[in-house]
């Protein structure tokens, strides 16, 4: 018996601990870890794509809002109010489950490839949702452009559009960066909605694992660890980014002065 105890490799020891002493069955998670990585890919794919699409949409919308463009300001305000005032879960249900109610949607050419597909529905809803949030804080950043910068641009004889590209937007993007890092993390957190419309994101895999082996925690704890690691990378990335792009706003270290 003592011999057998010694001959155990480290790996077998881990298996032994996990099967007999630990409340969590680590080996089962380790056997399915590839699924969790695929889940991570899906989560990241939807999060990054929707942030990109939403961000591209938000720039013109925010400009129109900031300058109170007569015909667009009201409708854009309505759009952002609607998407910011309601839960993303319900918005996603509305698109994925709701659109099938209309015959003209089901008969249109978009139905087969896009609107009956959970992935596309999620991408559309998430993009519109993040566009709503991004528009509003980008509008705030544009409105807070220091007056002196605009006067300087005018004094240099810049046209309206050149001033936008060279002065207003670059400085507004920088000022919006801290709020944007929150939006990115918020979007990653919101992407759990994917698992409620049949997609296998990180949480979806966790739910699948728990359902398949009739477990109570393993899948969720693993999902939790995956999300925490992702958030850690995102917030570290943004901290470095802010250091680079907002360096001129940082208070000087006392040692420098």
């Amino acid at each position, binding site marked *: 018996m003592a011999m057998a105890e010694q001959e155990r490799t480290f790996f077998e020891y881990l298996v032994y601990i996990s099967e007999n002493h630990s409340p969590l069955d680590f080996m089962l998670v380790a056997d399915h870890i590839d699924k969790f990585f695929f889940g991570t890919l899906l989560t990241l794919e939807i999060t990054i794509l929707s942030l990109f699409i939403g961000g591209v949409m938000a720039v013109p919308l925010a400009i129109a809002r900031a300058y109170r463009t007569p015909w667009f300001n009201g409708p854009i305000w309505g759009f952002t109010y609607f998407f910011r*005032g309601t839960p993303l879960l*319900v918005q996603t249900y509305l698109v994925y*489950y709701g659109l099938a109610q209309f015959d003209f949607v089901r008969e249109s050419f978009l139905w087969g490839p896009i609107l009956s597909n959970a992935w596309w529905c999620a991408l559309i809803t998430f993009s519109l949702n993040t566009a709503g949030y991004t528009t509003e804080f980008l509008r705030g950043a544009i409105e807070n452009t220091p007056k002196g910068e605009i006067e300087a641009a005018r004094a240099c004889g810049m046209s309206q559009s050149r001033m936008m590209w060279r002065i207003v937007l670059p400085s507004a993007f920088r000022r919006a960066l801290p709020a944007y890092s929150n939006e990115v993390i918020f979007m990653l957190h919101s992407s759990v909605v994917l698992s409620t419309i049949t997609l296998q994101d990180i949480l979806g895999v966790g739910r699948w694992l728990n359902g398949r082996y009739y477990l109570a925690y393993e899948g*969720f704890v693993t999902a939790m660890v995956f999300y*925490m690691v992702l958030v850690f990378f995102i917030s570290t990335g943004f901290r470095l980014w802010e250091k680079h792009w907002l360096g001129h706003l940082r208070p000087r270290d006392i040692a420098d002065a």
Partner: protein
Amino acid sequence: MDSVWEYRNLLLSGAAVTVQLALASLTLSVFLGLIGASAKLAVNPIFRRTANIYTTLVRGVPDLVLMMLLFYGGQQVVNDLGGATGWWDYVEINQFIAGVWSIGFVFGAYMTETFRGAILAIPRGQIEAGISCGMTPLLIFRRITWPQMVRHALPSFTNNWLVLIKATALVSVIGLHDLVWNASTAGRSVREPFSFMFAVLIIYLILTACSDVGLRWLDRRYNVGVDRA
């Protein structure tokens, strides 16, 4: 849209559950937030570190994950513990309790940051003045810290509350018969999911608009005596 009107009682009872859930979680989160903020501002490093772990953990994990962990896992932990110690018999954690605890836990962390910032905004000299007048810590909290803290905390509190209301929708995923669950069930049965989901969105907009009005009133009340540019 006729069928939505027909099912209005179902939707309204669901909305009542949603509001109860939101208010209960808000109470818990304010409580946790006050504890967390005082722990973060405490002299004892163990308190500070625990509070930091708490806020970092919550920032890292989506609320639905915590909710499911609590609903499915918490049940097992409680009953394993009860079985091992013999202190209690089988306990069932229902969806409402799991929802309140997980949403309260998550937003407690955000409230911690809100209250911490608000307390830090109060000039230190005022608290010292309170001490020198011989006030007890509780009296200092009630007379000096609290009234000013509320004023500084309100904007961020409002924001947290609006996010919290929306987070309650997730409880339908673990099966609480709230507004979203009732509406999607009814929508499926009468084959009009869009109308029902749209009604849910409108109800959420009404809820957020109402709380906006209420919180603006509070904001005015607590800012009486403050000069605003």
